[in-house]
């Protein structure tokens, strides 16, 4: 009877040790899922650096798991801590993401507004430019330039509607620059007339 008890204790002790040596599969899966989830939420676009760090941290944790897995006496404590941190950081990033996306959206809308102002300013300048000697042909061409920029302006809204705020920002910047270029040339045409009048 005494011998039997000893065996039971031994078996239980081995079971406890083996349980402790088991790969933290659930945590690994949770961490991977968390990373996938933040990526799908747009982290790779709106929080590029944070997402890269998270990816690297997960990789380091998986490395640690793999390293321990090859040992006879496996200690997954550190790996578990690392995985837990990945999970916490991923959750934190996911929580912070809406604000980052909102900031990107606001910036895109602000740039869209700037582009609109630029187009309106160029148009106002074109309207008041003297269409007399020496400018009519240039102004006609610049009207074409402005019409092109105006058409491209619609693309900004399309990108905003598609919730692609980074693309919307790029488009808005390009349209704003194009409008500024037109305004500059209209001003040059106006100055040319002023020069002629002198």
């Amino acid at each position, binding site marked *: 009877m005494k011998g039997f008890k000893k065996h039971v204790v031994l078996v239980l002790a081995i079971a406890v040790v083996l349980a402790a040596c088991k790969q933290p599969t659930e945590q690994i899966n949770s961490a991977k899922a968390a990373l996938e989830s933040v990526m799908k939420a747009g982290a790779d676009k709106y929080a590029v650096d944070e997402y890269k760090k998270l990816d690297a941290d997960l990789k380091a944790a998986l490395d640690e798991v793999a390293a321990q897995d*090859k040992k006879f006496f496996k200690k997954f404590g550190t790996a578990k801590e690392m995985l837990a941190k990945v999970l916490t950081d991923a959750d934190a990033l996911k929580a912070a993401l809406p604000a980052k996306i909102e900031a990107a959206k606001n910036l895109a809308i602000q740039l869209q507004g700037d582009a609109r102002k630029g187009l309106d300013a160029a148009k106002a300048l074109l309207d008041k430019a003297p269409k007399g000697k*020496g400018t009519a042909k240039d102004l*006609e061409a610049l009207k*074409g*330039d402005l*019409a*092109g920029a105006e058409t491209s302006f619609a693309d900004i809204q399309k990108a905003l509607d598609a919730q692609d705020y980074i693309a919307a920002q790029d488009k808005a910047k*390009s349209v704003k620059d194009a409008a500024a270029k037109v305004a500059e040339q209209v001003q040059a045409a106006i100055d040319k007339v002023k020069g002629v009048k002198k």
Partner: protein
Amino acid sequence: MLIGLCFFATACSTPPVPPELSQAQRLDEELRGIGVSFYAPQDLNRFERELRSAKDRIVAERAKFGWMRDYRPAAADLRKVLEEGDGLRLRIVSLKTSKTESFRARADALTERVAEIKRMTGYFNESAPVRMNLSQAEIKLAEADLLLKKEEYDAGSKDLAEGEFHLRAAEQAIADVLIRYRDRNEIAKWRTWAQETIEESRQRGTVVFLVSKIERKLTVYKAGAAIGSFDIGLGRYGLSDKLYAGDEATPEGKYRVIQKFPAGDFYKALLINYPNDDDRKAFAEARRKGLIPGQAGIGGAIEIHGGGKDSLTKGCVGLENKDMDRVYDYAREGTAVTIVGVVSIENTILAEIGKLDIHD
């Protein structure tokens, strides 16, 4: 004492972890940073697998007593991993450089074409549709440039393709305006008119005016020899042949000065006999075909006048006032005025148009 000495000896003989390990880890981070996971994911997996295996060897060694540890095989593995990783890094850097270069070359070529076409729009007044497309192309190229800076080659290539699409539309808009200027029959007709006019000047010893629309020149001939050439402006749609009142096109044909105005609305002016018989025939034909809008008439009051070569006229030929003074002095009532699209097939403007990828 003996035990203490043993410990001391053990501690002293514990070899350090090979420095190649941290180098390889840094390289791994660098490879991920430059996007190897995107460009060569399988190669990166292999690199990381080998790195992990080398790390495992180090872990295995660290599990031993200090004096029993031998990192040399692991260090040798790591050196191989580093060598492979370096090769991979160089390959990706070179791939990205070549992608950037080919992207840049394509973008530069398109930018150059935009500039070339934009310059050509200076030759004619009907430039607004061309410029609209060019402006859209420029905006797409600017967006592509922003994407290139972020190494987003695929999205950038899409923008380049859209830029090229607008560029082609601009070229086609030029073709729509200039289609007649590439037509050999039209050119032959214009050349015949020009030769006949110059021949008349030579035979009679008189002054004649030859207006070439595409070259924007009014050349004065006396006794068959050119004695002066002046820059001119045309109607808003000056490169088209005038067909009816209000089309703002400049007529083509053989005309005569029928009246001289020393002080017209636009400085001095020479009225020509538009419409002539050919114009009337063309108008009647166009009306029959339904090409004349509403109740539009054939129009008239086409002049050579001052007021500036850069102004858009309603179909007249405009000159700088100082040039108009000279042309006015050369002119008499009855002076021949021949207006043609182009005189010489070899002129540089047509040569430039020929370079465009346009289809009639």
